[in-house]
């Protein structure tokens, strides 16, 4: 009896030791791989003092780039939210030929390399492209200008809103909408008062993901924009420009601003995610 008790104790101790080693290994790995780089950049940005940091951020081309990112992000959120909801409702509530195909390719923007995405839009909207030559005739420039950058951002963030609300709409079903309709609500009233509230947390989550990706998009926008300083340079393109010009403080300080923005978005995302689980 005594012996077997001791053996159980030894096995337990071994198990606990194994657990502690595994936890320590994971935490150390996570700290070095994921967190250390964040500390590294903070150290580098302030290496030459706060004045240099602020001067780099308030340079005209820096401010211009952040404002441009803000505009593109806002436009992207509005367009992709409206069309994302329309797409989700169409895919959930309607039956039509080619539905499976459309559902399948909605995810494609996540899989396509951003550079290839940008290239596709140059071929389509460039001066000699299918649609581009047509716009060019009307005097509208799309590639190497703002519209092209917006289109590229719309592409890379297209799946977020639709993907988040499709499962909610499916689960929600038709019953409540039907009741509202039977009770005399119009189609629009039903949408605003019944359908939209039911998907609100999924929608909020999708919008946050869209914002995060729009702010951070680089490859696709770089290719379609031509990265013209003070004209078509977003924040990420500005960081890249500063880095290739060996102006490291400029690159690091702008990068910190985006990193802080990402952190705020991340915490918002997690709060919404928890809400989504509660409702």
């Amino acid at each position, binding site marked *: 009896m005594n012996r077997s008790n001791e053996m159980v104790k030894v096995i337990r101790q071994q198990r606990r030791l*194994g*657990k502690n080693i*595994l*936890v320590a290994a*994971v*935490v150390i*790995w*996570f700290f070095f*791989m*994921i967190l250390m*780089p*964040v500390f*590294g*950049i903070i*150290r*580098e940005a302030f290496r030459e003092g706060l004045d240099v940091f602020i001067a780099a951020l308030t340079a005209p081309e820096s401010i211009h780039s952040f404002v441009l990112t803000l505009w593109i992000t806002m436009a992207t959120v509005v367009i992709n939210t409206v*069309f994302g909801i329309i*797409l989700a*409702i*169409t895919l959930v*509530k*309607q*039956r039509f030929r080619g539905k499976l195909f*459309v559902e399948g390719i*909605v*995810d*494609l*923007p996540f*899989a*396509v*390399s*951003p*550079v*290839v*995405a940008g*290239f*596709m839009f*140059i*071929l389509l909207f460039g001066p000699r*492209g299918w649609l581009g030559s047509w716009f060019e005739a009307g005097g509208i420039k799309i590639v190497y200008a703002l519209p092209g950058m917006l*289109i590229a951002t719309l592409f890379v963030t*297209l799946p977020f809103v639709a993907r988040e609300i499709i499962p909610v709409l499916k689960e929600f079903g038709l019953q409540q909408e*039907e009741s509202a*309709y039977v009770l005399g609500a119009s189609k629009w009233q039903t949408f605003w008062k019944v359908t939209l509230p039911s998907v609100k947390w999924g929608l909020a989550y999708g919008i946050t993901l869209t914002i*995060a990706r729009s702010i*951070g998009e*680089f*490859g696709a926008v770089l*290719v379609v924009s031509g990265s013209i300083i003070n004209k078509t340079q977003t924040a*990420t393109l500005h*960081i*890249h420009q500063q*880095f290739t010009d060996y102006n490291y403080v400029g690159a690091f300080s702008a*990068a910190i601003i*985006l990193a802080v923005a*990402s*952190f705020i*978005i*991340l915490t918002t995302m*997690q709060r919404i995610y928890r809400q989504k689980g509660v409702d």
Partner: protein
Amino acid sequence: MNKPGFLKSLSWGGDLTLRSLSFFYVGLLIILPIAAITLEALRGGLGSLWRNILTPQAIYAIKLTFLTAFFMVVLNVITGTATAWVLVRYRFPLKNLMNALIDLPFAIPTVVTGIMLVALYGPKSILGGFLNKQGIEVVFDKPGIILALMYVSFPFVVRAVQPVLQEMDLDMEEAAKTLGASSFTIFRRIVVPTIIPAILTGAALSFSRAIGEFGSIAIISGNIPFKTQVASVYIYGELESYNQQGALGLSVALLFCSFLILVFLNRLQVWSRKHEQIQ
């Protein structure tokens, strides 16, 4: 799902406007661009497309892309599964904080990731200087590419495996334990078979992200042909030097791989649903 006529009209079922808007949205942003790049690539015939892909520099770029992506996936499967395991099964200090920070790599723009890694591992930093003396080059060399890929796709495996582990019944493991199975046997025979679909999903998502990744690699790799130039950066280089023909070959190749991965993920979902039912 047979609805009386008046309810059908409410369920957006007959709404042609919604469907047209959805087709316009998906058509303009996804279908047309892909059609444009595919037709453009095929215009000179398959022969010239192959000649584009088969230049030594392009072959090297695509080989490097797949090798680094593969290496990263192996590392991320191991560390990601361990991280998910530790987060679900054990309690330790600051666990909630760590769980919240897992998604950080998704929130941080990829250019910023590249800049952060240069700040930490660059030859002028403490860690980079130390590694340099040991003869290990991280920045502007292959280890840097793998580090960047690991960073940007770290959350995929963790977030795929975590929910499956959370929902797993402990009954079987406990039964095995009472019957005298060692921890390793339990893990190999009971845990791994349950989480393998989730691991494969995470791995496929990481791989898909890695072969298209551009921003972080453009910063950290230095883009040296025959040394650190990956496919996406090669395409960008060709576009920069106004050689669209040269960019087409690898673009279409990458696009094709994205399609394959999407199809694979789709099959995987079907399979894992069946897998669940059997269990």
